[in-house]
Structure formats: C-alpha cells, structure tokens
C-alpha cells in the first residue's frame, strides 16, 4: 500500500495488465453470429445435399435481400437507441407509389421510382422530426406512422395489386451468371449498401457520432455534435433505405403489393438482434445485421429443403432470437 501511494505521485491511475490474447479476440457480440451462421450452414449441408449449391446460396440471398436492406435502416436507428416499427409500411408505401405512378399516371419509370423513394424518405423525415422537435419516443412515433403509412397505401391503391410494370422497375430482379450460378442485381445492390453502411459507420466521423449518440446522447451533445439534426438525418436515411427495399420487393415479385411489408419491422429487428447489435443503442455492427438476416434466411431455406413445415421455421426463429440475446447478455455480464 505504501509503495503504491509513492507511485501514484508519478503515474495517475492503477496500471492495467497488458492485454491477454483472449482480450484481443473480437467479443462474442461480433463473432457469435458468424459462428452461428457457420454452424447452421454445416448442419444443413450435412442434412441435405441440395443445400450446398451455388444456386441455392443465390436463392437465399434473394430471399434475404428485401429484409436485408430494411434491416440496414433498422440498424442505424437501433444504434441510436431508437426503434423503427414503421419500416415495412414505408417500404410498401414506396413500392405502391412507384408502381402506381409508373402505370396509372404513366410517369417515366425512373421518375416514378424517384417519387416512390421520396415518399418513403419523407415519412422517414417525419419520424425524425416528431422524435426531435416534439420529443416523442421513437416507439410511439413509428407506431403512429406505421398505421398512417399503411392506411395511405391502402387508400391510394384501393387495396389492389399493381401489375404490368415497365422494365426499369423490374431490373433488380434480373440475373446475371457467375459461372453456373445466377445472381440477381438486387442482391448485388444489397451487398453494396451494406458495404457503404460499413464504411460510413467504421471509417467516418459521422459513423462514430452515431455510436456516441447511442452511448450517451447528452455527452455527445456537449461535445458539440448536433445530435438532434443527426437523429433526423438517420431516420430520413432509414426511410430512403425502406424505399429502396420497396423497389427490390417490386422487382422480386413483379408487382406492387399493398399487403407487403407487414412483418418486416419485426423481421428486421430480428436480424439486427441476431447480428449482435444491442437494442439499448451504441453497440453493434452493420455487418452483424447482414449475418443475422442470413441466419434467418439459411434456417428458412434449410428447413424447407428438409421438408419442415413453415410454422416450425417461425418457432425456430423465435428460439434463435432469445438465444442470441441471452448469450450476448451473459457474455457481457461475464466480461
């Protein structure tokens, strides 16, 4: 004790032991989802020979691409300690606006796509504005806009599916060949968006501010970062991403479907949580969300190939979510 007080005059703070190898490894939060995905793939590969084929992986990516893009926006929102329940409805609204504008109004298809993206983006901004200007909790705001966007979509489309779409709206459903495998342009777009999201969050100051905001909003504000403007920006960008997801679902199904997107809010939150991002904000990674979405996709695909009924797929997804959060919490408590 006496010796420690003499050292404290030269060095402030007790020295911390040099990092052990175990500390250098990424925490379970980042590595866990990847391990789970690998285990799931290994399991299904051992169960059915059709699983381990390039064409099947391409199919999984196609099945994942819509919720995958929605989940990028959801990740951004959750990193700020928020939540977005309206995402699926903003996606449906965007897809109805772009398909109706291109067919009924006879607008130039590209302009129609722009209008669709704009409508989702505007609703995203509305979310952010209500949260920052009126100071309402994100849960309530997005629950409200979920219903509003749903109703607007139904009224405008008269609950009718929009078909006979011009080519540009279907582009992202088209495929190109990589060797034997057919890959859709939509999956390429999804992966590109993840790459952009990863870059912004990891390599730029804005990305760091998103994490800081989710960690300690007041400290972030005191450091001179315009947190309220950032929040509006994040909900707006999330809205744009839901619009892009709307374009993808149109391309994938070939129609504008006003009933689309009804489970995408919970599905995207599932992907985010499975990917190791904390619902309390400030912790997590965007690529984890991609892995999370793929885990759900792989389970659905693998179980279907094994002939398991779809109700059981939902059952297993539910168990996975609880397992993922439980492991995460336990690893934090241990650390």
């Amino acid at each position, binding site marked *: 004790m006496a010796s420690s007080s003499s050292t404290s005059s030269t*060095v*402030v*703070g007790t020295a911390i032991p040099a990092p052990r190898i175990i500390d250098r490894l990424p925490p379970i939060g980042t590595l866990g989802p990847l391990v789970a995905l690998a285990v799931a793939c290994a399991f299904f590969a051992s169960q059915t020979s059709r699983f381990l084929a390039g064409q099947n992986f391409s199919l999984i990516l196609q099945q994942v691409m819509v919720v995958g893009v929605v989940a990028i926006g959801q990740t951004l929102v959750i990193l700020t300690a928020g939540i977005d329940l309206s995402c699926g409805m903003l996606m449906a609204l965007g897809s109805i606006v772009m398909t109706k504008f291109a067919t009924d109004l006879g607008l130039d298809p590209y302009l129609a796509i722009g209008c669709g993206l704009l409508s989702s983006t505007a609703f995203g901004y509305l979310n952010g504005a209500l949260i920052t200007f009126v100071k309402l909790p994100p849960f309530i705001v997005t629950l409200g806009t979920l219903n509003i966007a749903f109703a607007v979509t139904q009224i405008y489309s008269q609950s009718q599916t929009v078909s006979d779409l011009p080519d540009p709206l279907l582009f992202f459903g088209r495929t190109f060949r990589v060797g034997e495998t057919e890959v859709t342009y939509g999956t390429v777009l999804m992966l590109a968006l993840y790459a952009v999201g990863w870059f912004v969050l990891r390599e*730029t100051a804005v990305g760091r501010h998103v994490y800081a905001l989710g*960690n300690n909003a007041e*400290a972030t504000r005191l450091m001179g*970062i315009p947190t309220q403007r950032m929040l509006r920006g994040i909900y707006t960008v999330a809205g744009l991403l839901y619009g892009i997801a709307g374009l993808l679902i149109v391309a994938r199904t070939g129609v504008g479907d006003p009933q689309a997107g009804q489970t995408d809010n919970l599905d995207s939150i599932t992907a985010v949580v499975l990917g190791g991002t904390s619902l309390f904000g400030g*912790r997590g990674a965007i690529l984890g969300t991609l892995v999370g979405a793929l885990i759900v996709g792989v389970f659905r695909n693998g179980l279907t190939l094994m002939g398991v009924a779809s109700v059981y797929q939902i059952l297993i997804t539910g168990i996975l979510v609880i397992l993922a959060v439980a492991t995460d919490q336990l690893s934090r408590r241990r650390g």
Partner: protein
Amino acid sequence: MTTTAAARATSLATSASPIPVLEARGLVKRYGHVTALDGADFLLLPGEILAVIGDNGAGKSTLIKALSGAVIPDAGEILLDGKLVHFQSPLDARRQGIETVYQDLAVAPAMNIAENLFLGRELRRAGPLGSVLGMLDKRRMLSEATSHMQSLKIGIRSMKQAVETLSGGQRQGVAVARSAAFARHVVIMDEPTAALGVKEGNMVLELIRRVRDRGLPVILVSHNMPHVFEVADRIHIARLGKRSCVVNPKGISMSETVAVMTGARRPEDLPPEALA
C-alpha cells in the same frame, strides 16, 4: 515549488498590466423573481488553479454556467484574454478555448479511449481519402491519444480499451485529458471528484495540478474543502449572487473560509494575509 504559482498569481495581481485569462464584471442573471447572480465579479489569472466555492444558492453554479456558455447573463460582461466575449452556447465557449469537464463523467462508455478523446474533433486522413470520403486517421488519433495520456501521466496501456472497462477515476482522467488537449485558454472542472472515492479523487487532483503546470489555468468548482485547500492557488468565495472575496489558502484556515462562505464572518474582518 508550492509558492511559485501563488507568488506568480500575487505578482500578476499587483503588477501594473496583468491580463487576466478570464474576467467577469457585474454579471446579473435572474430567473423570474429569483436573482441567481447579482452583480458578480470574477477574475482568473494565467497559470493558476482558482477554486470556486459557495453555499447552495450562492450563485456559484450560475456563475460557472455563464463562464462556460451554458447560461447567457442578463447584464454584465465577460472578457477572455482582455477581449469582450458573448457566449451563446457551451459549444461557442468551447470554440473560443474554454473546455468544461462535467461531474457526471461525460464519456461514451462502449467507445474506446482514443475515440472518446477525439469525439467531435476526429482527425481525417490526408488527401482525398479524408477530404472526399471523410475517412478517419485512426492511427494518428491512437498515437496522439497515447502520447497525450502519457504526458499527463495517466497510466492506461491501451487507447483501444473501452471506457466502460476503466475505473471511475480513470474515466474522469479521460474526460480531463480530453479537455486539457483541446482547451486553448481555460479548463473548467465542475465537481470533478464528487463521484469518486478517496484514492481516485486524489488521482484527479494530481491530474488537475499537471494541467495547471502545463500552463492552462483551471477553474475548480468543488464542495470538498480538503480538495480545494490541497490544490487551489486562490479561492473565490461566492455568496448571495456576488463575489464575497478571494482568499489565499496559505493564509486562512478551512474553518474560517467556511465561515466566510456561510456569512458567519465578514470578509472585511479577515487579516490581510488571508486575502488573495
């Protein structure tokens, strides 16, 4: 060594042209019919630790808020390096070189030390990678964080450690280091030891001295009299929305200081060596 700072402060105060780093004259702030500041004066000299003490409701925290830009006074003037300033926000004050360390450990827990040190002032890479893509220069931030923490002798090995893995004192160390790194004129510390244990509190006091010894004047707001007497060069006593007096901790006892603070003793009755 102990006399230098106090002697310098005294000589500066008595010499003909001392330019105070931060000065306030006749600050008034009213909240409805409550007068928080009633013509308060304030003077901070170069290279000193000035403690600000006062009973609850003495106007101490409103004074500090006015100096750090968090409150805009109704009347009076604030001078920074002899020039009149009007802070509109804490950010405004920060831009002009006044950094504030808040008592509630204003750090982002899940982020690492280097990220916290540079929060809001991130360094970008040179060339188009930085200017066009906005890429961060993580390596430079890490090495600058390391050398800065070493120069303040804060014993933390890795700047990549998450702040939440540090002790309370070390976290406060990060907050103080951040302010010291970016302050050009003044560091204001609002109850920096209030949330800490004895050992950790001493650690932070040591750190405050180091910041002062590097030439940055420090305003220390504290309720902790032993801490105040341990590090302060001069003590500003706030009372009834005004500056009651400024005392010299070498010439007055703790109990007499408290007596002045509470109004039990008038500053006029103090012996001359007690005043600074």
